[in-house]
């Protein structure tokens, strides 16, 4: 999607702030959202991230007015819009299924919102042409949407939403119907377009990487609650709970009993690990601690952060788990080993060819460890 400047480009849409205050919502008897509060700054791109059933889509639909809220308020630029119908909120939504109207052409789909606003015909044509141009759909305006490819339909859906110059852009898993290769590029295109237009955007996704790449801020939901809000680096490097750590990819779990001493964490030697004395606190390369972490803890780490060491060697500021290679494969460029550590198995990549059954150590740099007190 080429980005263009000049008089044909739709004018920058001034983003506005959006505030969700103590919102709860239900489907029948089932509470789906519990006391959700969230403030989104003008022009900010926020991703609502969570597994299916966590309430992220319901929150988006509450914001758009399709799901009534039981309690709480929704404010747009400081104005209470909680009880406004969906057609009076000046928000535009891009649906997961695109929801394009098959009996209309691409241009008619994009221009529909303008037609509803009684934009004069000449002006409407010019704006639709500018939108087609902006989205790289030149020459496709007269095609029926059923004759367009998945990626092109996705752009028409985006164009239809942006054409009315909404104050808020709502994206409900808009990339999940695209194949993986196209999805990679469309992510960046949407993000670039949002920045160019300066519009406030709320994006629902269950794809961690998609949220990381696109959003300024990520809101993680679980069972109808917000469990963490932060910049991509923050939720990735400092997940606030074991659930978030696992959701953000740190899904290898080991239980230890640790001690705090001199600003460090001591993990005593045990059957399957060597003793480690790791830096903690606000220094770079420190272990991420949640809770007092003096006693039993749950340690989470990502498989890709681990390395293999042979013999008794212990890299500095690292924890080493001891085990044996139980399986080996070659996905290309490196070997992937399944390491049996006690009753657990961890997958670790390493460039060296090693034989099955060899005793090895899994080295975990302090910065890759997240410790949680129960």
């Amino acid at each position, binding site marked *: 999607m080429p980005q263009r400047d000049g008089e044909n480009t739709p004018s920058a849409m001034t983003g506005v702030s959006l505030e969700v205050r103590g919102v709860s919502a239900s489907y029948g008897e089932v509470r789906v959202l519990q006391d959700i509060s969230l403030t989104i700054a003008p022009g900010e791109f926020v991703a609502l991230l969570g597994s299916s059933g966590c309430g992220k889509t319901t929150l988006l639909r509450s914001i758009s007015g399709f799901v009534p809220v039981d309690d709480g308020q929704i404010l747009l630029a400081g104005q209470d819009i909680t009880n406004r119908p969906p057609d009076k909120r000046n928000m535009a939504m891009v649906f997961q299924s695109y929801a394009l109207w098959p009996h209309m052409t691409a241009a008619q789909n994009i221009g529909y919102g303008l037609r*509803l606003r009684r934009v004069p015909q000449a002006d409407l044509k010019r704006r639709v042409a500018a939108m087609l141009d902006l989205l790289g759909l030149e020459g496709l305006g007269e095609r029926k949407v059923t004759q367009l490819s998945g990626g092109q339909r996705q752009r028409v859906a985006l164009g239809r939403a942006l054409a009315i110059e909404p104050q808020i852009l709502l994206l409900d898993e808009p990339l999940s119907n695209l194949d993986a290769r196209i999805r990679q590029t469309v992510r960046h295109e949407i993000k670039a377009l949002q920045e160019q237009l300066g519009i406030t955007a709320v994006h629902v996704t269950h794809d961690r990487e998609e949220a990381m790449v696109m959003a300024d801020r990520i809101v993680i939901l679980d069972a109808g609650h917000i469990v963490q809000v932060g910049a991509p680096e923050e939720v990735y490097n400092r997940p606030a709970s074991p659930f978030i750590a696992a959701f953000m990819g740190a899904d290898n779990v080991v239980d230890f009993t640790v001690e705090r001493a001199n600003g460090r964490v001591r993990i005593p030697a045990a059957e399957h690990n060597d003793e480690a004395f790791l830096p903690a606190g606000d220094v770079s390369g420190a272990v991420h601690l949640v809770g007092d972490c003096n006693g039993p803890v749950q340690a989470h780490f990502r498989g890709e952060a681990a390395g293999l060491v042979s013999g008794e060697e212990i890299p500095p500021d690292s924890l080493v788990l001891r085990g044996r290679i139980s399986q080996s494969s070659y996905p290309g460029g490196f070997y992937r080993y399944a390491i049996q550590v006690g009753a657990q198995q961890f997958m670790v990549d390493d460039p060296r060819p090693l034989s099955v059954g060899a005793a090895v150590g899994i080295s975990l740099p302090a910065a890759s460890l997240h410790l949680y007190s129960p």
Partner: protein
Amino acid sequence: MISTATRNRERLLGLLLVSPALLTVGLLFVYPLGFSLVTAFTGEEGLWTTANFFKAFEFYSNDILFTVVIVVLSTILIGLGAIAIGGYLTLGEHPVAVAILKWLYRWPLFIPFIVAGQLMRTFLAKNGLMNNIFVSTGLLDPLQTTSFLDWRGIVITFVWKQTPFVALLVAGAMASLDRSMIEAARNLGARRFRILAEIIVPQVQPTIVIGLILSFVVMMSVLSVPMMINAQTPTMLTVDMAFRINAYGDYGVANALGFISYLMTGVVAWVYLRQGVRAGGAP
């Protein structure tokens, strides 16, 4: 290579398999239709003639026009009613009202035409239930009441009886549309009426057309309703056909009138098929 004998045997077997269906269609449809067509063009002496058609037009051209007007008007009203019911069931926001409508609207489907005719006679007469309600609520003076037992009664009965059938088909088609298409229009600022007219109806149009054509054909063939509700001239062709046969044993003119009815439904079917071909899809 397959020998000619084997191929012939396979052909015979295929013909045997299809013969029950072919016989049924032939005996119960093609033969009576052909016979009635032949009778329409046969005079009393058994010679070919177009006299039956001349007679039919001479005596019944008003009734032909009356039939066309009644059935076309009813079809239009049925279409509007079905779209309104389907639209409310799809877009209605009051769950109780939607549930009541869903429960109520199908009832006339289960009532035979002859019972509907009888029911409307007591409802639409000068001293019928409808006028009684108007009088008792003070809307009308007893002297102002008129009987609706004329062409209006036929239209009302047809619409009452056939709207649920088309609404059933149309509401089903509307319900199977992707809900987010409706939400997308709502989200862009469209009111419900516009969503119905611009988003929903164009997409279920083939279903509406099928339902209306089936209704058109059914109404063309109903005898009891015009006979019970409209005991005067002009009347519908079905009544004339029954009269020619019962009063005069005149199968020639009756069949000519039948052929004319058949042409009317044929025109509707042709328009529909042509539209299907133009749209490039299956009809």
